[in-house]
């Protein structure tokens, strides 16, 4: 069995083409996918990191392209510990859609979910959204804020490590969204559930 102490579910949302998949790939595999197409076949990616000598497994979920026509399933948001809302700093419409995304997050995600606003593609020279505008938006909506470049690998590691650290902190103070008496079920590979009060993950 894997010897990690915590497993956190992190989900990404934001308009199509803002670089969600690239952020995940950059972080989990250290590569920047050259392809432009929508994300196919990728469900979630896993990376284990260390926070203060503890192993933390991050399960990072991508939208599977369902954001393209604003049709993300509610169940995508269920049980998320952290939520990364991404826009493209060189594309105003992706920023303008943020309130719509927030509405959806409010509706389906846990109220305690850790929220991070990310302005991606800072390698681009045709910036349309100044840093302070993003910052202000994040502040207004009680979110963390970070600008990244998946291409140049700027702040990507920092983004996810920050999330891991914060979630660890929350976990220690028991302030984590608790989805069940048995949080292990997120990763449960068992086929028998002894205690009927636990929820079961089928495998």
């Amino acid at each position, binding site marked *: *069995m*894997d010897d990690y102490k915590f497993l956190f579910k992190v989900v990404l949302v934001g308009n*199509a083409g803002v670089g969600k998949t690239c952020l995940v*790939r*950059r972080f989990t*595999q*250290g*590569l920047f*996918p*050259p*392809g432009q*197409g*929508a994300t*196919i*076949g*990728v*469900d979630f*990616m896993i*990376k*284990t*990191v*260390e926070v203060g000598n503890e192993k933390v497994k991050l399960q990072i979920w991508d939208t*599977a*392209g*369902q954001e*393209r*026509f*604003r*049709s993300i*399933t*509610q*169940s*995508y948001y*269920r*049980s998320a510990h952290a939520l990364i809302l991404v826009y493209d700093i060189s594309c105003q419409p992706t920023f303008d859609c943020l*309130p719509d995304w*927030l*509405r959806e997050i*409010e*509706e389906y995600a846990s*109220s305690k979910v850790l929220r991070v606003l990310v302005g991606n593609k800072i390698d681009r020279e045709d910036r349309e959204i100044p840093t302070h505008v993003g910052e202000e938006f994040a502040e207004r909506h009680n979110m963390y804020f970070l600008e990244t470049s998946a291409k140049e*690998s700027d702040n*990507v*590691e920092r983004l996810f*490590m920050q999330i891991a650290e914060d979630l660890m902190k929350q976990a220690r103070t028991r302030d984590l969204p608790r*989805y*069940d*008496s048995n949080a292990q*079920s*997120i990763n449960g590979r068992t*086929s*028998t*559930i002894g205690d*009927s*009060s636990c*929820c*079961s*993950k*089928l*495998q």
Partner: protein
Amino acid sequence: MDQLPTEFDVIIVGTGIVESVVSAAASRVGKRVLHIDRSDYYGGQWASFSLESISKLHEEQIERKNIINSSHIEHSGISEFVELGNKLFDIKNIECTWHVQSKTDTEQSKESTEMNDSDLIQNLVPNEEQHTQETVTWTKEALLKESRKFNIDLVPKLQYARGDFVELLISSNIARYSEFRSVSRVLTWLNEHLEVVPCSRSDVFSNNKVSVIEKRMLMKLLTSLEDVEKDLSGCKDKTYHNYLKEKKLTPNLIHYVLYAISMSDNNTLCEQGIKQTRRFLGSLGRFGKTPFLFSMYGSGEMPQAFCRLSAVFGGIYALGQPMKGLTISENKFKCLLVNDQKLTAEHLVLNLEHAPKQFVDLKKLEYISRCVLITDRSVMSSEKEHLTLLLYPPENDKNSVIMIELGTLTGTCPKDLYLVHMTTRQKTNPKEDFLHIINNIFNINHKDTESEKPKVLWVCYFSLPDFLSSDVKQNVPDNVFLGTGPDIDSDYDFSVKQAKEIFSKMYPEEEFLPRAPDPEEIVIEAEDEEIEDKDMADKQTDQKDEATDGEVKQKAETKDTETKQKAKTQDTETLENVEKKQVDH
């Protein structure tokens, strides 16, 4: 927003469970799928709603009818245009009523929080102090404030732990998209009381309402029925009730086996009854104390799980799409008209609800009566929260009723409240069909203030078509397939069977929902992004088959070391060919 692509292998209209399973299956084997719905939510007649939105169900139905009526397009050329939708299978008899005061002095909420201004509502949880109070007085406003914590199913389903549906979730790896909770007790109404039904052997022995002789009888019967090889020749042409009587069981035992364990009634034929009993017994001991599972956040999650898999394998999703209709030529579906676009595909799968009138030949339509209650306590109080299945036997002129009581641990209702779903074959109308149960088990008018019965705070009745008992003939072009809506059975077997049939008619050569690879197994090559998913999956399976335990372990170790290093150095390294393996399969 983007324009939709216009060419597909299959277009699927409606996001009910049948359509969603077909969609997942088609995408999984590499077909180009467009999955589209007129509503802006998933599930159609299988959806779950917040308290606020289920209260608007009635309005939505009316609105939808208007949409259907308003669109009209001229015929063009040789192809024939038909409008989508019919009014045959609408939800009927919708009636929701509050049984709480509208506002009281104890209500501490800030005024001005309008429910239609969804942005403003945050932290809907009543504070801790309220919870610790002996009696919480719920008001309409307080309940509506918690609206989103409710996931109210139109069609609540329980899954048999070893049923076809659960097996499909596991074999296809779709199980990873949902969590389940096992039903923790099965109750029945016997001699004017609620009684716990002994399900397993240990239940039978620990049950103090059953005498020692009865225990032996019951064990003997259940053991004999479990044996699939057993000759059932004594079973011909009689009801299950008579069969059990001939076994000389006591009336109480007959009640347990007939009405609870086999979910039969007095007219159920013996063979069917035994089949049902086996279905129950066969699913014991896998997850929890009873044979049943319930999906967290409600049954509305189930279609979504299949849709997620479909999307992961390239299916395109578009909800809230106004669809005008479709064109047919030479008895074949040609294109679907969405917005101003013409979308073409080789096959079209439609939910019956969306099907053009001329595709449907309705012979007989039966209904399911539904009743949903919000109550302030469980039907049978207990220290820990239970997920309860109550099987209420037929009574005089009433059909048997399946009741599911859900607490907050299921993610379908807020703390300190219970959500009760009742389902039965409709006899007259939902209100009358459940009246006796409401009177026997619940306190609906709050007249008796001393009553221990659960207080009903809100009630909603409606009728859904039951496609299991109805007779609907299809009159469709060659490449069009219709998926049905809800059915009275407690599990999804009926829908999965249909989905399989539709899929195999479209793609007779293809495998139905082969196991999707785990993320750890996906090979990502930096050089070549455009790997065909199907090939990828096949490659995975091959590799997996070949790998011996030793190899797998070794690879797992390598992976661990890699990860460690990465985490420590915090440097990102480019891995040309990352290969990850599932360790514990």
